[in-house]
């Protein structure tokens, strides 16, 4: 197997070109995305670790099989995230047993609060992380996934557009709607607590 240090200085596109000549180089590409894709699939689906490992392995194989379809005009990260996203969602649809309650770690939630998502910290402190997470879990997938990509994965609009295969304008609309729905849900949650 090629040494890991061989791949560290290479760009994604260079590693793709090298992988097409020598399969061993693919290890470096996978290693580069292993951790971020594991978190992404988890945030998206809430699957168990073992399920995520199975999914990730299939995603890596799919990416490898389709490597000749990769277009260097796009970011490789957007492309691999797109394949991971599509495969994860298709698995969720085929096997609803996978679906669990997502429990992001506090770091994710802090990142969300500190991002430009415009959730006031004081506002969140009143409802707490647990409740915020519960509210996020209740969001429809199309809103949850843009929140994950924009505020947790910190992807820009163009990358999100390429991952979701939606126009940039639609991505912007989804983010704004997600913001509104989340704020409304938080308000409702707080109102509910008042009456409890």
């Amino acid at each position, binding site marked *: *197997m090629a040494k890991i240090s061989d791949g560290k200085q290479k760009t994604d596109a260079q590693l793709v070109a090298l992988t*097409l000549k020598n*399969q*061993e180089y*693919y*290890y470096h590409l*996978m*290693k580069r995305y*292993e951790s971020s894709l*594991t978190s992404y699939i988890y945030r998206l689906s809430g699957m168990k670790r073992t399920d995520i*490992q199975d999914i*990730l*392995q299939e995603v*890596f*194989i799919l990416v*490898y*099989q*389709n*490597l*000749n*379809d990769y*277009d260097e005009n796009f970011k490789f990260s957007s492309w691999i995230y797109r394949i991971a996203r599509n495969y994860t969602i298709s698995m969720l649809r085929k096997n609803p047993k996978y679906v669990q309650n997502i429990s992001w770690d506090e770091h994710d939630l802090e990142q969300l609060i500190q991002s430009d998502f415009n959730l006031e910290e004081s506002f969140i402190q009143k409802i707490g992380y647990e409740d915020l997470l519960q509210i996020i879990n209740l969001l429809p997938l199309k809103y949850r996934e843009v929140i994950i990509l924009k505020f947790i994965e910190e992807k820009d609009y163009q990358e999100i*557009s390429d991952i979701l*295969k*939606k*126009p*940039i*304008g*639609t991505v912007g609309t989804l983010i704004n709607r997600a913001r509104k729905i989340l704020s409304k849900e938080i308000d409702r949650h707080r109102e509910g607590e008042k009456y409890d």
Partner: protein
Amino acid sequence: MIDISKATLEKMKRENIHPRPRLYFLTKNLFFWLMFSLATILGGISFGMIMFITGDLDWDIYHYLGISVSKAVLISLPYLWITFMLFFLFITCYNFIHTRTGYRHHFIMIFFISLLVSAILGLVFYQYGWTETIDRQLRSRIPGYHHLIYGREKQWMQPARGLLSGNITVIDRENSILFLKDYSNKEWQVDISQTRVKGMFPITNNLKIKILGQQLSEYTFKAVEIRVGRGSSQKRGRRTGQP
């Protein structure tokens, strides 16, 4: 903890997994572009056919029939070709969205641009008379096609509503009567004693004419106005064979 990357690489080697060839993806992409082009052309033809069929109708006769403009439009729209056009537009949009960067554009924008392209192509087909040729071919080759289209033939074959058309077979000038064979080969006796003739043309045997008037009995008709069946001199120089 499992090294997923390492395990995946081993699995790929074990199962002899390789990347699909570049040609596979090129062919796939080419297929979408081909389907896109084909659907655009067919959309253009459909648009041209809509222009031809609606442009071919006599829109001034509806007030004789006491029909409002909106009702006239509803009766006359070529729904078959409108359905084809919408279908091909959908195929065009679908194929464009499935090209490499097609998803970056809004569906509505793609739809309207495709509609515009179809309209331009349709206009070209119409102007060059290709839509007329297609219409003629469809009428002669596809049985029942003319029943599906509200064309000029159908428009002028409503004797109960005062519209009749066909070929003159005999002219009896003494009794101001002419005999006419309609498009279902039925012989009509037409009273032309109080008739005005629209346009400057002599009434002769075998002339294709359209008559506005009143049905008197099963095969007798009283003509109020006679028009010549639109001939080669009146529209784009190619039209033949129809009222």
